[in-house]
């Protein structure tokens, strides 16, 4: 005689298929997206080949397209953002998790997270009307006078440039880095801090060997998440970067980013090759983000492994 299945197992089956379906859906959308972009950019791929990656000219009138200025703009603004927001975010996290009294901790922690809630178009407006004049009239002339011998700070200050884009991005990714780093530092067991203190560590030494060393994979993770956000950010960057496909070593130069050119030009793409070239820019952005995430995973993995036979959380 066949045994009757207990009713509960139906629930489990439904749960398993439903959750499995959602997982497949996410992966499916990912692949579909990549495939569609590949197909749509075929004309451009065929026409320019690998030269598209290294092409410096973007001239829709003469049907010549190259993506290098956009790749350059995206990478440089993101790196500027990381260089600025990384140390500051880490500093905020250390202050909040190790130094601040409980009340300050919750108030400042909340305000930092509030920073993430500002819509990027509002930040962009602020970047145009407040940051740009300030950079163009005060910061950049000063930097040019003091450090003008470095190509990075060479040229006429305008305020609408790579530096502005990088700064706006830094503001946008700061909350990500600060709040996630703070979370992982707060999660470090107290016994780790006490182990360091009991050996005669000062406060800073305790933070270094008891907290940062323990939390480093999480901290790297927070920086990578911030970088991911910076690479894809469109609105705020396009408002302050100048939207000119230039490649200049100077941060005072106008530039363009991948996300910005797609957003700005897809309505003007009047013929197939133009649209296809834009699609290929999207494909490159997609690939860069993907590669970066893989690289980040490897980095976290190798750092987290630590000494032989060990494991970090």
């Amino acid at each position, binding site marked *: 005689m066949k045994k009757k299945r207990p009713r509960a197992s139906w629930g489990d089956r439904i749960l398993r298929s439903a959750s499995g379906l959602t997982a497949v859906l996410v992966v499916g959308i990912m692949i579909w997206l990549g495939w569609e972009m590949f197909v749509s950019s075929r004309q451009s791929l065929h026409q320019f080949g690998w030269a598209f990656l290294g092409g410096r000219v973007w001239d829709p009138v003469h049907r010549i397209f190259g993506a290098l200025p956009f790749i350059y703009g995206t990478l440089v603004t993101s790196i500027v953002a990381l260089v600025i927001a990384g140390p500051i975010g880490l500093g905020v996290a250390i202050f909040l998790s190790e130094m601040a*009294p409980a009340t300050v901790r919750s108030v400042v922690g909340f305000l930092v997270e509030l920073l993430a809630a500002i819509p990027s178009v509002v930040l962009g407006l602020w970047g145009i009307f407040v940051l740009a004049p300030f950079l163009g009239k005060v910061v950049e002339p000063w930097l040019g006078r003091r450090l003008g011998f470095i190509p990075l700070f060479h040229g006429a200050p305008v305020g609408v440039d790579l530096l502005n884009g990088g700064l706006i991005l830094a503001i946008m990714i700061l909350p990500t880095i600060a709040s996630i780093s703070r979370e992982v530092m707060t999660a470090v067991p107290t016994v780790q801090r006490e*182990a360091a*203190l009991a*050996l*005669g560590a*000062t406060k800073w030494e305790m933070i270094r060997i008891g907290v940062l060393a*323990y939390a480093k994979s999480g901290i790297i993770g927070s920086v990578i998440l911030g970088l991911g956000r910076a690479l894809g950010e469109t609105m705020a960057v396009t408002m302050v970067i100048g939207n000119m496909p230039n490649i200049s070593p100077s941060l005072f130069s106008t530039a363009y980013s991948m996300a910005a050119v797609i957003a700005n030009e897809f309505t003007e793409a009047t013929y197939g090759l133009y649209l296809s070239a834009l699609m290929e820019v999207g494909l490159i952005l997609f690939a860069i983000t993907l590669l970066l995430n893989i690289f980040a995973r490897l980095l976290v993995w190798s750092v987290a492994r*630590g*000494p032989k*036979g060990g494991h970090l959380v």
Partner: protein
Amino acid sequence: MGNLSVRNLEAWYGAQKALLGITAEIPEKQVTAIIGPSGCGKSTFIRCLNRMHDTLPGAKVSGDILLDGKSIYDQHPVFLRKTVGMVFQKPNPFPSMSIYENVVAGLRLNGERRKAKLRAAAEKSLRMAALWDEVHDRLNYSGVSLSGGQQQRLCIARALAVEPSVLLMDEPASALDPIATQRIEELVTALKKTYTIVIVTHNMQQAARIADFTAFFLNGELVEFGPTSEIFTKPKDKRTEDYITGRFG
């Protein structure tokens, strides 16, 4: 070296008073056990001896503790803790460091950079902690790759490497199995030749086995303090007798 003299020590967590005026003489190069039921203040007491209690927010201390005649409150806690080492209830090696790096972590904090010195100190401390034979060929392995008992001995080696004169142990064997516990107890007995040892334990048999002196704490008060044999065979206080005969706790 390593004689501790506690004078009317009181300690608070915020408004809550955890120690009600403790006075005791902890003799050098002896094992002193602190026993008592949960919440009696025994951990608080031992954490006052290296000023670890002070690091908690809202914590407060009054009274005085003299180490070899000098108040521990007259020096910065960072320096005090190099003289008064501590081993915790749960083994807490630094997971990002190898076995070797764990042992020399304290010396590196002191600014010691010479390889030969660090190597020698690591071997000496690991030998004292009776761990050398088990780990000498895998010093570059992670500290957390060891078993729980080995990790605890690693933490003892780490504390010994800075050459303290007092070693505080806060229930060092409570998270370990009986065999690992026995090894820690043997180690404590061997170490008292060199160090003053104060050990908190909830295990009365353990106190009876390893301690020269025993202090019985109850509700933040030091009820009785004396040679272990006397505490366990002819306690002067009724409450001590009740506790060691298992009537409560």
